[in-house]
């Protein structure tokens, strides 16, 4: 087993790994659909899903079928896509910024999204859940635009881009706090906090369709540029010497990750830690080459998020803990193990 070989046993190992993870994912999704305030047997879940897909016409209670198909399955699949998307973005940004601490929110996108969301929740700009997402998306892109301007279109080097992201995050977080403290009441402050920590409550099929399109397109573009990403291993100049159009690749990939992150954040809030931890874990499993790392990130991220969503609903009975709390609670010990195992051997 040599994860760094692209040919032969390496490819077989990746295929086996992906099949395994996808099987686990299918099981996790089924589990996520079965578990809840109203518990449904796995057999009914399977039948409800196959009914929904039009494969079977089994006779099951319509309420159970509706709960499975209309509420829980869409939620589980959105969770899987969000996990996959955040993990891919994390891997891309870690490569482009050559920084192990990079994650999807490093470009200020989540801070911008929260400002946008708060403007909707507290200031009441627009109304209803659609405009909450729209507000968050607008805020996310405002933040990304600011980072792009501050870092001269990301041409000034990784550290410059990271600093621009930190500056934008601080600015938008300050704006969020300002709006909440000056205009919000206690209930609104609570709503905002819950939104910021992330939630899959209320997502439906249209959300899934949108997210599915964005994540698949994003992954396809990133895979197309996977070789160029590998060339960044020794820095920008080295990538340029290997014939990679550095400025163009950088800008395209920053835009793609911002688009994916903004879509996810505006839909389910800013769920931390997945985009940071999963790429590191995936790198341990399949090695650093992006052509295999990105699919692995997508698969592992999806499983992780679905499991975290299950945990968020069962840890405290009758109550859903914010998903961001769970990802960090589960993620940190897991990350600690990786850090411990990969400590320098000196």
């Amino acid at each position: 087993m040599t994860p760094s070989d692209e040919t032969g046993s390496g490819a077989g190992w990746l295929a086996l790994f992906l099949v395994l993870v996808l099987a686990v994912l299918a099981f996790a999704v089924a589990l996520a659909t079965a578990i809840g305030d109203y518990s449904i047997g796995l057999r009914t879940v399977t039948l409800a899903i196959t009914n929904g897909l039009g494969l079977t016409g089994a006779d099951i209670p319509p309420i159970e079928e509706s709960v499975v198909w209309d509420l829980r399955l869409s939620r589980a699949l959105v969770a899987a896509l969000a996990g996959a998307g955040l993990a891919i973005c994390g891997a891309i940004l870690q490569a482009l910024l050559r920084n192990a601490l990079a994650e999807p929110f490093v470009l200020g996108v989540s801070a911008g999204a929260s400002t946008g969301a708060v403007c909707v929740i507290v200031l009441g700009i627009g109304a209803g859940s659609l405009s909450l997402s729209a507000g968050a998306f607008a805020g996310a892109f405002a933040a990304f635009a600011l980072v792009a301007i501050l870092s001269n279109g990301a041409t000034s080097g990784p550290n410059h881009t990271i600093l621009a992201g930190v500056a934008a995050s601080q600015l938008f977080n300050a704006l969020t706090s300002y709006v909440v403290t000056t205009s919000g009441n206690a209930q609104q402050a609570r709503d905002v906090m819950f939104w910021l920590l992330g939630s899959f409550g209320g997502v439906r099929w249209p959300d899934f369709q949108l997210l599915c399109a964005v994540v698949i397109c994003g992954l396809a573009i990133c895979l197309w540029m996977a070789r160029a990403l590998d060339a960044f291993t020794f820095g920008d100049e080295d990538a340029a010497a290997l014939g990679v159009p550095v400025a163009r690749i950088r800008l395209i990939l920053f835009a793609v990750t911002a688009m994916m992150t903004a879509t996810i954040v505006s839909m389910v809030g800013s769920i931390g830690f997945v985009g940071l931890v999963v790429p590191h874990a995936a790198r341990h499993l399949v090695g650093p080459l992006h052509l295999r790392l990105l699919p692995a990130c997508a698969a592992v991220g999806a499983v992780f998020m679905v499991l975290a969503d299950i945990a968020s609903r069962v840890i405290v009975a009758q109550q859903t803990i914010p998903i961001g709390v769970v990802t960090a609670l589960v993620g940190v010990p897991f990350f600690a193990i990786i850090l411990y195992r990969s400590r320098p051997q000196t």
Partner: protein
Amino acid sequence: MSVVASNLVWGVRRKRIVSDVSLSVAQGETLGLIGPNGSGKSSLLRLLAGLRRPQSGRVEISGQDISQIPRRALARQLAFVQQNAATDTNVSVRDVVRLGRTPHRSALSGWSAVDELAVASALERVDMTDRRAQPWQTLSGGERQRVHIARALAQSPRVMFLDEPTNHLDIHHQIEILRMVRDLDLTSIVALHDLNLAALFCDRIAVLQNGVLVACGRPAEVLTQSLLRDIFRVQAEVNNIDQTGRPHIRFKTG
């Protein structure tokens, strides 16, 4: 493949770092680039390799202006070895050398027999075949430099630029690397600090001072007592010990 630079000018803000440099390197020749710290060696090398765009002047390889050649096509013809390029990523020696095939592969093309051959022979050339599975992080400075050169060779270039490839290496590895570069069937331009090594391994030597090319020629013509005093500010004795025309420099302490 020949390299011809004419009237290169480059700088940052108002500071001029390379001023009006013209030089030409013939097919298969090894040119040493020497000069005090801050004389513009690295900048000139990057201009020649097309990694920076000159403010004026042009670089031609085999008569073709490199600013007219797309990045990827250029990378198939010339390779650049940075000094001390490092990474935190956990890559193997083979992964690093494989990067050299980047300009030869499109987004969808698989790993071909030609790619495999190029990587294998590059590893062989720097004597790292047995270590190809070893993690990059566990290599010594000299081994890392050899792997970088192997990666450059895997690009199958016809011109190679090396920025102080012998920095931080012991004398054995310094000589080993420069001998390797000299014996390659490539046109190469090497920035160096060690004047004796430049004299030993380079066909010709170009001397930079404050971004200006002050001398260019065979080692014995360039490395004179007066040049060492004026440019490098050292007192030295220059001996032409044998018939090869390779001078030997002996520095005086005072």
